[in-house]
């Protein structure tokens, strides 16, 4: 019995066809994975089902009846709930208030009553949350549970989860999957959007693979394997990047000694962070987002001043130096938000020159010919699909990242500081970026890789440091690291080496 059928769904954004005659059906009581690369059209399709977008063509049937879903309100009325990556919770309110928000009757809101009702619902669905807790104080995993509870409280029979594991540590993922299995046993149908093959194999009953806005196929999970799914998803065999084992240099190129820094609110964000990265080494910084990685990258870029501690680059003290002094000392920086790394309204050529303006100046005037030549050379060398005169904001995420890589790596920096370098990129661009980082390692640069993607950290790093609440809670050589061990450290449960000076 199909609870949801989507037939011939087509959605265009200008000239881009995001969904091209997609057929999708969801059986009652199944967990159905929707697999595809970034930009394959997964989220668009689900946004149509949830009434956030309207399809240009096609129809939707719920329990065999054709329906019109013009807004999330319609979707909720039909028993469809959606949990997105960005939670729609009001942080200062309690769990119970968030759950009933917009779904109350009458005028008076009695705290005790709603808390009791929410507690009952939580118990019935097996979702462990305290209804009187204030959302602001909850962890990401707990907030996600509140979101799921919110959908179920609205009597959802279909639950759409958009990349639910992206924000979770491995232990929280386990808990989420247990919850989903229990809910499935209770008759709930789940659509699970992901691009992670391992999760598909672990949790789903069936998989629908999308590529370039089209359905590649729908298969029973039990009758397929990761290899086949990967081929369906990418359209070719993927090899991934492999780090070849090689001796790490002795020379410490980046030394961070007991650095402390505050966040934008003036709260301590880095607590006595100490790290060493050697020539020809990739040091991975693992951790759940928001544990000080952003501040660490900013301190090492010269954008944020440390309150104490020392930063040495190839022996040169750069504590409190400005961004251009870091650049001059040989630090190449790939920023976390690549849109913040370029000025979108300026051209590709201008952005490529921006960090080294003195080289393109003649007595205060711009040498426009040199800027153009420089840009064209880098565009070719780094395979950027753009013209020198294009505004940077018109570039795709992958090309924008190539622009930043070109700007940084063409200078053969001593230290490469890469923050979330592949976030939001498709498989091809991700591979390209990772290969470039490995090439830097082979060249003898010291690479500090900050990433929330554990697979990326494990695939590239020689050593792995874990950050939790602004501290380095441990450093492991790559061969000793596995997802479970790192996950425990990332959740703050284990400190491998208390206050360790991160040198092995």
């Amino acid at each position, binding site marked *: 019995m199909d609870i949801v059928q989507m037939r011939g769904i087509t959605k265009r954004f200008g000239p881009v066809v995001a969904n091209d005659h997609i057929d999708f059906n969801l059986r009652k009581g199944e967990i159905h994975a929707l697999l595809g690369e970034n930009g394959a059209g997964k989220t668009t399709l689900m946004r149509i089902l949830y009434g956030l977008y309207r399809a240009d063509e096609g129809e939707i049937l719920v329990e065999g009846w054709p329906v019109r879903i013009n807004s999330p309100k319609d979707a909720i009325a039909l028993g469809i709930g959606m949990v997105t990556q960005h939670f729609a919770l009001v942080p200062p309110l309690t769990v119970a208030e968030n759950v009933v928000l917009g779904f109350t009757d009458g005028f008076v809101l009695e705290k005790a009553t709603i808390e009791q009702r929410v507690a009952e619902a939580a118990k019935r669905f097996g979702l462990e949350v305290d209804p009187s807790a204030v959302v602001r104080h909850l962890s990401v995993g707990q907030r996600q549970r509140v979101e799921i509870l919110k959908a179920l409280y609205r009597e959802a029979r279909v639950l759409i989860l958009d990349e639910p594991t992206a924000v979770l540590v491995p232990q929280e993922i386990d808990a989420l999957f247990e919850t989903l299995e229990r809910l499935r046993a209770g008759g709930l149908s789940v659509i699970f959007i992901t691009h992670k093959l391992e999760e598909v194999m672990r949790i789903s009953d069936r998989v629908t693979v999308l590529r370039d806005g089209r359905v590649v196929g729908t298969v029973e999970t039990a009758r397929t394997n990761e290899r086949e799914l990967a081929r369906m998803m990418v359209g070719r065999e993927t090899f991934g990047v492999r780090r070849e084992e090689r001796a790490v240099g002795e020379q410490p190129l980046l030394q961070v000694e007991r650095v402390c820094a505050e966040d934008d609110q003036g709260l301590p964000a880095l607590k006595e962070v100490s790290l060493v990265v050697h020539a020809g080494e990739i040091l991975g910084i693992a951790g759940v987002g928001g544990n000080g990685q952003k501040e660490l990258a900013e301190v090492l870029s010269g954008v944020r001043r440390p309150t104490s501690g020392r930063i040495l680059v190839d022996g040169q003290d750069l504590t409190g130096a400005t961004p251009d002094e870091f650049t001059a000392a040989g630090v190449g920086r790939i920023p976390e938000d690549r849109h913040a790394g370029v000025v979108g309204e300026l051209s590709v050529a201008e952005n490529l020159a921006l960090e080294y303006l003195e080289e393109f100046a003649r007595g205060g*005037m711009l040498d426009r010919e040199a800027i153009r030549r420089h840009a064209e050379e880098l565009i070719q060398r780094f395979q950027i699909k753009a013209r020198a005169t294009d505004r940077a904001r018109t570039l795709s995420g992958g090309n924008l990242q190539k622009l930043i890589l070109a700007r940084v790596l063409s200078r053969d920096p001593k230290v490469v500081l890469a923050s979330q370098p592949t976030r939001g990129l498709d498989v091809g661009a991700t591979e390209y970026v990772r290969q470039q980082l490995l090439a830097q390692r082979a060249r003898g640069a010291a690479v500090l890789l900050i990433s929330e993607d554990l697979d990326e950290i494990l695939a590239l790093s020689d050593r792995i440091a874990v950050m939790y609440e602004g501290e380095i809670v441990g450093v492991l050589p790559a061969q000793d690291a596995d997802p479970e061990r790192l996950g425990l450290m990332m959740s703050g449960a284990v400190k491998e080496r208390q206050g360790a000076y991160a040198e092995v």
Partner: protein
Amino acid sequence: MLRFKIEKTGAPVWMRSLIPVFALLVTFLITSGLILWGQANPIQAYYYFLIAPLTSRVSALEVLVKSTPLILSGVAVTFAFVAGYYNIGAEGQLYAGAIAAAWLGTVLGGLPPALAIPIMLLGGFIAGALWALTPALLRVKLAVDEVVTTLLLNSVMLFIVSALLNGPWRSPVSGWPQSPEIAPSTVLPKLIPRSRLHLGFVVAVLSVVVLWFVLSRTVFGLKMRAAGLGREAARFAGVNVGRTMLIAALISGGIAGIVGVSEVAGIHFHLIEEISPGYGYTGILIATLGALNAWGVAAAALFFGLIDTGTQTLSHAMGVPIYLGEVTQATMLLVTLAMLLLQNYRIRRV
């Protein structure tokens, strides 16, 4: 039931180039209602606005006279806005320059014009820049919002001018709040005999060229644009955003100061309280209408000068209030801004 839907998509290129034309048409339609209300014929009124001033040599030159302070103010504001510094204080900086001109004009009488006039212009620039310095420092060092501080300092400056004119500079003969006449050698020479067009117009044209050159050809111009268009990215790339903003703010204030010099030494020959009918604020409209582009700013300023000239004839000839000119200018700005925004969307039936 008909359903419509708004989609984000860029307008075709041919449509972009027609935006000024469409904007003028829509402005005409909107203001026509007001003109009819004033019991006048809209088409005739627009004839007076846009065509009549250009039909005689005298009034055509008057358009350039009226455009002079507008061009300079537009350039002044653009310098700041491009760097992401929202200088609303051009009006006060203008009066700072005017005070400097009124003072220098009385003490430089012994110098030949070739020496006196450059000193007047430089003095006005420095005075305007100094008046712009405090809010700029507050912005860069302490992150105090410059929109508020520059705006408030305009009132302070008006009180200073009033205090000067009613105190030490009050005319001993007539008792009017009016500074002593400046020396003849400090008066900006006329460009064309028997007109009011003076050297200030040349300075204004030069300022447009300088603005274009700095923005498109110099390292500092690129730093200004980077700081204004993407502050974080510029900082990340090693641009000293604070310093860039500070310098842009001072240049902006300085050029606004030159407006004051141009009006004192070119038109009035003494300082009065009413030297500017809000040129500093109109400069913001012009900079915005000109899309912070040197040639756009020049075109917008000339257009405003045309309407300013036309309004006077219009109100004489047809008896409609003189405010109609300002209403038209403001409507034009709003319509253009709306069009620039709306060109990114289209409405489609679903």
